[in-house]
């Protein structure tokens, strides 16, 4: 059969010669190789002080966006929850009261918006489904925690910091 790659090697079982059997030259060779690694720059990245650079389209923790006036974009339509294959998103809608126009862009907003980070698979379908450009997976890696209940992130963790606090 024709070889499929150039990696084919004919095995030869010829006995080792004297220097190969003496073993010490081979050890010296091995020591030289490991010494080369001794002076090589370590590949370790000391997470969390140091972070590997993420790619452009990395999908991390979600954030709920505000518009250019600092109002929350989300209108609690529920399309993100509907599109979520892992069923990680729940929300409760509420009506905007007079005087809250500077907080919410539309008449309806999400009073409660929760994402279970243990269920989320970071597929980004919520991002795609959102008609208001309100949710983006542009955050960091979700940090670890001790209790399951602490992985259910509410609006306090998800909503972007206000523009003019």
């Amino acid at each position: 059969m024709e070889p499929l790659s150039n990696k084919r090697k004919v095995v030869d079982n010829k006995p080792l010669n004297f220097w190969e059997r003496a073993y010490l030259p081979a050890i010296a060779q091995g020591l030289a190789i490991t010494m080369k690694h001794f002076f090589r720059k370590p590949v370790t990245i000391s997470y969390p002080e140091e972070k590997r650079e993420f790619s452009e389209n990395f999908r991390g923790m979600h954030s709920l966006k505000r518009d250019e006036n600092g109002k929350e974009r989300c209108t609690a339509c529920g399309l993100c929850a509907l599109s979520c294959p892992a069923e990680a998103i729940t929300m409760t809608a509420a009506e905007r009261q007079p005087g809250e126009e500077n907080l919410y862009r539309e008449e309806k907003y999400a009073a409660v918006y929760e994402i279970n980070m243990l269920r989320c698979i970071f597929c980004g379908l919520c991002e795609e489904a959102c008609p208001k450009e309100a949710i983006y997976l542009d955050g960091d890696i979700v940090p670890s925690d001790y209790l399951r209940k602490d992985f259910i992130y509410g609006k306090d963790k998800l909503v972007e910091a206000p523009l003019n606090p």
Partner: protein
Amino acid sequence: MELADIIVKFILVVIIFAISLVIAMYSTYAERKIAAFFQDRIGPNRAGPWGLLQPLADGGKMFLKEEIIPTNASSFLFIVGPSLAIMTACIGSAVIPWGQKLTIGAHVIDLQVADINVGILYVFGVVSLGVYGVMIGGWASNNKYSLLGAIRAASQNISYEISMGLSIIALLLITGTLSLRQIAEQQHSWHWNVLSQPVGFILFLICAFAETNRTPFDLPECETELVGGYHTEYSSMKLGFYLFAEYINMFISSAVMVTLYWGAYNYPFMDWMAAHIGTNGAVILGVTLMFAKIFLFIFFFMWVRWTIPRFRYDQLMDLGWKILIPIAIANIVVTGIVITLINR
């Protein structure tokens, strides 16, 4: 012996004891760090600056762990094992000359605990006692892995002690004395024994690896076959003592190799240095250089550990009996012939 001499000796003993323990402690740190560098990693760096407090953290952990003595183990011998291992490791340093004599006022301080005329034999005796710690511990555990590890350790140490002794005989033909102090004095400035006994040194080095159970001869504790080897059943500080004894042994055997072959505290141009910076300054420089050489050897032990895989058991025995012993005997014969020809 005067009281002052006894006090000086006592202080020296305490210092050497402390130094061996600290070096053993920081060998564990160095081993982890060096292993990391050889594998392109960083190694422990969380406890203290650069992880320098790591050995303390490890020691504290060892002390606080639960101590378990298996029900079916022979509880007295189970405790004797690690005690013997650490004791024999610690007393080996008694005959090693750390430097020339210091002169402070009218006092002459000998930087060696005991200048006995059979120094090498003492070292050999202590080293062969060390295997009892492993044997007793492995047997008392009442565990087949421990027992197998202990048997391996015993047979390996006995096999390699023979070629170690034979490689020393060739050296003794040249030096004509067993006292480590005199051997050290004979290697003044650059007349190091490794220049006249290169083969003997390589044999001794290989045997030292086997005696200290370091890779590639770490069969008594090979994880892949014997779980933990002879210390499978050990926990807490008793395990710590076994591991500690291994590192002290490494330090002592490095010191012995430096004393016998690499000129102990001697260095080229030492007379010139003594004339320029004073006798005591030259002595202290010699001590420093001796420790530098010892650290180089410890580094070499670790370097080899992270390079070479472990031998198979039959290969180990083949190497010990069929290769090292014949070479050692040939070395003795050749050395004898050369000495006879030179002295004629």
